[in-house]
């Protein structure tokens, strides 16, 4: 009886402990990759790092930030790099995010590549300019019932160099049931000349981790972390007429772009800016944009409401923004002028706008966009 009650569980426990020790030792031996060298852009940077971790995280520890919206969980497909050395075939977790061309070029998701040996990679040179910033929330303003303007003072480093149209990744700490820090990309609405601040327009997405945090927990005076600048969206210096379309927080890059152009005296281009919202309470910055129209005779702002309410007393354009865009391209805007499209919004909005623009002879390679997804 004594043997059964006391010795048997002790023996089982002992065997378990020995097995656990064996597994730990095996793991240390098998998964100890030692130091590995990451060669970036054919010798431009060489990093000697401890192997074993995913490439994305290792580069981040070395202050090289590859854009990622999911924190390395393999669910956003953003952290693509070209791998020039052999790291094995594409994983099933990578292929859904890759086109055939990308697979042929050995483009990989850096969060899925475990560093086991020396590796050669190629990344855009601009990524070397991305920094991690510690800032303080200086001001939060409610622009609409679901969009906040967040103005952040940069403390460390104190200044950011960026081009209007670029975005940053905001990092929010764990909260509630969210056990890890989470980051999402947001276009900067501030002008590049305001080097000590970053301004963001953040729309509440029901169920969204970062937007819920910003709308319910983020307070003025609070420290906040961000990385950036990222992205290639911005004005192409050609002189062609600019047809800009946005909705909701898609206002952000255009606020930055337009104010930057004004600041730099670039007022010679014809610009049409179409902004879509559902009702009057979803519109914002109307006074600022009206003021801009007064100062800039070639700038035209057109707001459109898709479902104006009786109490809105709306006298402006009604309908989906694509319908209003089509109406203006048909009846108001000079059909013969060379044009470029600039879009910021949901994938559905972008696709619909591109279809309208192509219908009016605009070339797809002259339509630039900042896709939310």
């Amino acid at each position: 009886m004594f043997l059964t009650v006391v010795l048997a569980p002790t023996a089982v426990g002992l065997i378990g402990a020995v097995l656990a020790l064996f597994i730990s030792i095996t793991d240390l031996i098998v998964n100890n990759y030692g130091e590995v060298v990451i060669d970036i852009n054919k010798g431009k940077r060489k990093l000697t790092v401890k192997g074993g971790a995913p490439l994305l995280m290792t580069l981040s520890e070395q202050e090289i930030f590859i854009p990622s919206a999911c924190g390395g969980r393999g669910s956003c497909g953003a952290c693509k790099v070209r791998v020039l050395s052999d790291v094995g075939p594409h994983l099933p977790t990578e292929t859904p995010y890759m086109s055939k061309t990308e697979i042929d070029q050995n483009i990989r998701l850096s969060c899925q590549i475990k560093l086991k040996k020396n590796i050669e990679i190629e990344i855009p040179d601009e990524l070397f300019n991305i920094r991690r910033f510690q800032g303080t929330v200086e001001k939060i303003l409610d622009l609409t019932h679901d969009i906040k303007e967040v103005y952040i003072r940069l403390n460390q480093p104190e200044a950011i160099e960026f081009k209007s149209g670029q975005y940053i990744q905001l990092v929010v700490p764990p909260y509630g049931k969210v056990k890890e820090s989470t980051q999402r990309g947001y276009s900067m609405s501030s002008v590049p000349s305001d080097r000590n601040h970053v301004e963001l327009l953040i729309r509440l997405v029901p169920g969204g981790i970062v937007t819920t945090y910003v709308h319910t927990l983020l307070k003025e005076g609070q420290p906040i972390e961000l990385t950036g600048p990222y992205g290639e969206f911005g004005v192409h210096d050609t002189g062609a007429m600019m047809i800009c379309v946005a909705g909701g927080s898609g206002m952000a890059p255009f606020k930055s772009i337009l104010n930057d152009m004004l600041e730099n005296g670039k007022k010679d281009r014809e610009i049409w800016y179409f902004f879509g919202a559902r009702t009057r309470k979803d519109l914002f910055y109307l006074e600022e944009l009206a003021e801009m129209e007064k100062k800039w005779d070639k700038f035209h702002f057109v707001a459109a409401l898709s479902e104006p309410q009786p109490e809105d007393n709306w006298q402006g354009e009604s309908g989906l923004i694509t319908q209003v865009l089509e109406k203006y391209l048909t009846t108001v805007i000079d059909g013969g002028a060379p044009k470029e499209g600039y879009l910021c919004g949901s994938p559905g909005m972008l696709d619909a706008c591109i279809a309208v623009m192509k219908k009016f002879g605009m070339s797809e390679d002259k339509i630039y966009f900042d896709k939310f997804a």
Partner: protein
Amino acid sequence: MSPQYIKAQANMKPGVITSSGFLGDDERPILDIISHDEETMRKLNLDFAEVAEAMHRIMTEGLKGLGEPITVDEVLLVQVNDARGFLPCPFEDGIFRKTNVAARLASTGRLLLYSDLSLHLFEKHHFLQGRGSPFRLEPEVLKEVLRL
């Protein structure tokens, strides 16, 4: 539970596929969650296929708002948002765009929140997610908002 369900339950924990996971505060095995919700659906006279069809239709209608809220069936305010990338199903039978649907019933203000993935979990696996999960589908809310 079968190995498939054990793996799925592990995939549903916070930090594996999504930061907050699929189980919320619910500590029950997922088979218990599923069977309990199937029973509730039966009591409410809700059919999984019929509910899923209504959710698909609302998503399709909501997409016509091009990212802005749009009125559907004259009683629902629907907004469809897209985030970058895809999410794999915890049962490992597909990947889904990060498309979120927020459908609010104007008369009561009741909100139904679902995603491409939560709709798949509901339709194919009868998994409505654990209590307290951000994308938990409450049968009572489905019945009220979808008016079934």
